[in-house]
């Protein structure tokens, strides 16, 4: 039976706070050393209390786990080590009961080589329907020049299969053969898998590796028109059969190239803004706003029903694919002194270690994450400042178990520590004895409390998820200043004027001035706020009114790595009377 979506507002994802977690490393309930769905259910109160509104679960399907679950062997069931389909249904119900939506992965570019489809394909004769589920060739010279994504481990996008006596195509690991979307039967199966989860009431689907669905010789095999046609078919099925669901595109591309993934509002609802993330780190280290303002200037407008997904860190490396080679070198020098911190084209570190565990820097970057136009996505553990383990292989450095308390295995599991899927972080700075949820809940001044307060504050204002953004250009480039504005009566974001034409005084409008100091030293700044003459900036965290704005430059002084969120309010004597 098809269940309705849990959200009541069709644009709910624009106001959401996403929280990315892995069932495997979040909470183990049965002492086998591996996280599971009942364990996750037992931690939902914590997540609700944190204030996040949508849980993004990394793949939890049956899998050989050679790529942490992105190598799927069965699309419509649950990996038995994580629980059962009934456990998932219970999890979904419990999350919805707490007003949290659920986003899961739809990994359709490839399967595991252990998927029954691939096992049948390699056994089947050439050109048979079974063989045709994947992309085969008698030569590895087809699609020459297409980049290799996992360049550290793969030397070619083709791998010879002895059983099939042919090469098969894979954009990722060789154990992840790409599905052949030129075969209509593949699309039918993908739609079946999608409907299976949406029918259960899942609220969103993250479309993994979506640019690589279709291959054509002589191209980069990325973002082809045929790929967009497939996305539109998925979207049309969702729109026709379901309400209040959303899709999130993983397209690690430059903003103008990601733009087509929104289509005319008929492809993906959301897409990650990959290039912004490394530039936030770059701007911080260079103490210069230019990398941020530059990439935002290159970011095209998107349809009004669409949204950018913003993040500081995730389960992968801090990807540096979307920077120039000079910028990549700079980032390596700045953030990965030890070569073990690097993997593929990126840096496999968590937020806190990247920022040398500096509380002000962590808060500053989170303030940007929460105030930039888009939906913020938090990575599990970053809310308490968890560290990483660069001695684990691949990207597992940032996939260690959640640190709940200072008990054995950080409270994650009662198993023998040697049985854990990954060891807990135990170093003296980030180890679970020093960094854990329990101690931070007890400490009113902890990062966890700060995050909780900031999330709650952001949720009070729709402007962050829905409003326009306009950068100010103060002389001091160590200061990043921008105005967020939202007019609920405006027919669309594009139609909302910026600058002096905008309406900032009508009831319901929200106008917020954000000012951030990217420098390690205190900085002065004078802002041209003449458009808002007569209004009163009210510091939003403490609800403290600042001096009224005049037509003169507005002076502010910011402590190192500090920021202001200032709500521009109509000055009290100009307020209307109530009934």
């Amino acid at each position, binding site marked *: 039976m098809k269940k309705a979506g849990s959200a009541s507002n069709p644009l709910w994802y624009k106001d959401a706070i996403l929280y990315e977690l892995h069932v495997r490393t979040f909470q183990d309930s049965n002492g086998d050393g591996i996280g599971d769905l009942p364990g996750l259910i037992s931690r939902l109160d914590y997540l609700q209390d944190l204030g996040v509104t949508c849980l993004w679960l990394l793949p939890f399907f049956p899998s050989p786990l050679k790529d942490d679950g992105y190598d799927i062997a069965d699309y419509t069931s649950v990996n038995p080590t994580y629980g059962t389909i009934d456990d998932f249904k219970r999890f979904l119900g419990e999350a919805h009961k707490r007003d949290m939506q659920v986003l899961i992965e739809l990994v359709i570019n490839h399967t595991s080589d252990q998927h029954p489809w691939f096992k049948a394909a390699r056994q089947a004769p050439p050109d048979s329907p079974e063989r045709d589920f994947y992309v085969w060739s008698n030569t590895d010279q087809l699609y020459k020049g297409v980049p290799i994504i996992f360049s550290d481990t793969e030397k070619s996008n083709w791998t010879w299969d002895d059983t099939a006596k042919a090469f098969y195509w894979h954009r990722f690991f060789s154990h992840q053969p790409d599905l052949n979307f030129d075969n209509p039967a593949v699309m039918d199966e993908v739609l079946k898998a999608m409907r299976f989860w949406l029918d259960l009431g899942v609220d969103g689907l993250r479309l993994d590796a979506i640019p690589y669905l279709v291959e054509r010789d002589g191209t980069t095999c990325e973002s082809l028109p045929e790929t967009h046609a497939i996305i539109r078919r998925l979207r049309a099925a969702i729109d026709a059969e379901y309400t209040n669901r959303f899709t999130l595109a993983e397209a690690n591309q430059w903003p103008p190239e990601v733009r087509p993934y929104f289509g005319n509002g008929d492809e993906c609802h959301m897409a990650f803004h990959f290039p912004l993330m490394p530039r936030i780190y770059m701007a911080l280290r260079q103490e210069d706003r230019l990398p941020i303002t530059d990439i935002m200037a290159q970011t095209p407008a998107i349809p009004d029903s669409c949204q950018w997904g913003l993040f500081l860190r995730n389960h992968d490396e801090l990807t540096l694919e979307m920077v120039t080679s000079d910028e990549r070198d700079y980032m390596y020098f700045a953030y990965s002194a030890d070569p073990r911190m690097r993997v593929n084209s990126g840096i496999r570190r968590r937020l806190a270690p990247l920022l040398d565990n500096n509380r002000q820097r962590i808060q500053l970057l989170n303030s940007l994450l929460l105030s930039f136009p888009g939906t913020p996505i938090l990575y599990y553990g970053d809310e308490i400042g968890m560290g990483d383990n660069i001695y684990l292989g691949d990207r597992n450095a940032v996939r260690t178990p959640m640190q709940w308390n200072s008990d054995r295995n950080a409270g994650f599991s009662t198993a023998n520590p040697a049985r854990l899927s990954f060891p807990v972080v135990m170093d003296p700075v980030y180890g679970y004895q020093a960094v854990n949820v329990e101690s931070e809940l007890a400490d009113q001044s902890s990062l966890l*409390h700060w995050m909780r307060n900031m999330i709650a504050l952001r949720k009070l204002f729709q402007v962050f998820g829905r409003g326009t953004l306009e950068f100010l250009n103060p002389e001091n480039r160590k200061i990043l200043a921008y105005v967020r504005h939202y007019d609920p009566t405006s027919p669309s974001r594009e139609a909302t004027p910026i600058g002096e034409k905008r309406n900032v005084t009508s009831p319901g409008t929200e106008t917020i001035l954000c000012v951030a100091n990217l420098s390690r030293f205190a900085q002065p700044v004078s802002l041209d706020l003449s458009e808002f003459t007569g209004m009163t900036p009210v510091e939003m965290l403490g609800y*403290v009114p600042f001096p009224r704005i005049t037509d003169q430059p507005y002076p502010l002084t910011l402590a190192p790595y500090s920021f202001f969120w200032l709500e521009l*309010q109509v000055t009290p004597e100009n307020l209307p*009377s109530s*009934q």
Partner: protein
Amino acid sequence: MASTPANTAAAPVEVTPPPEANLLIHLSTVSPEALEPALANLALAFPGLPLTVAVPDIAPNLTATNSFNTFQLFPYTPAATSTTSWILTAADYFNTFKLAQERNAPACLLLGAESHTMSPESIRNLGAAALSNSDLAVAHYHPRPHEGLLNSAIFYPVTRALFCARPRFPLALDLGLSLRMAERLATVAQRFTAANQEDALIWPVSEAAVAGFPITEADIPHRTAPQPAATDLNALLGQIAGSLFSDVESKAPFWQRARATVPARTITAVPGPTEPLNVTSMLESFHLAYSNLHEIWALVLPPHTLLGLKRLSVMPQEAFRMADNLWTRIVYDFILAYRLRTINRGHLLGALTPLYLAWVASHLILVHSGIPAERHIEELAIAFETDKPYLVSRWRWPDRFNP
């Protein structure tokens, strides 16, 4: 409630209902013996006006109403039933909208228990307000100095300050509703009735404020208030204040940005209280709690407030006076603790009861000294408005390290 010609700040609504208006009147709780006087009053209130009077299917003689032949009497079986009759509940709002929708009524009056004690003129006032341009007309009663103090101490000043809404009785028993207001309230009510919480309370004034619907008040000088089934103050405060605090929590995005000013009420001189002053038991409760509950209060209240309570605890009865700003901070900090679940919510509201009794004692002592009760209530409401930024700032940054 007995009559006192006190606060008349609620401007009488002058609008005369158009004769063709099809007003639905829902007597949500009416006993068989009160039905006839209630209908008689309605007949006098709206002579010749086409009315539908909906009454729960409670008595066999419901059809014997020929003497009120301008009415269409409509006995109905409630879609949702509540066991609480002394106050309006989710079931009442749900049923009202269903009835209004079925009867295609543009507006309706929802009258609570003992509505037969209202004068025809009062009912007419409310009806006129309901048919005016307002979406919500709220009864404005004239309580005696000893009456309705939970409302005066908490519900009114909190609702006024947070939602910038004027009604003196945000949980009034008698309301006029436009169809869209009734629908909005029914939508909220349905969330409760669907969870078998038909007795849940709903706060129409804050709902109207959030929706941006116009609100007005209608003067009801005479009315007998039904008595709550539970006479235990703890239970009563837990039920109503808990509901209000939950409502405040759910509407935080709205009230944190609501900043319109509510015009001051005009307070007219009224005779002082005739009852003898007897606050000894209230003060005893407060003093006992000061010894027993201090540790709990310390979890909720900041040091400045605790210091104020310490000073209060040693004041002699004749000089006992809880400053308005002290009570304001207490209520705001309890609202915040309720949101943060600092302690079990039931225990939290229980710890508020003796503080409330101290406020009542202070208020009554003040009133017996010659200060008009309504003037004090008005000053208190202004104190809540003035200190609203304190609640906003603590709500946004609930650091316990504060003054």
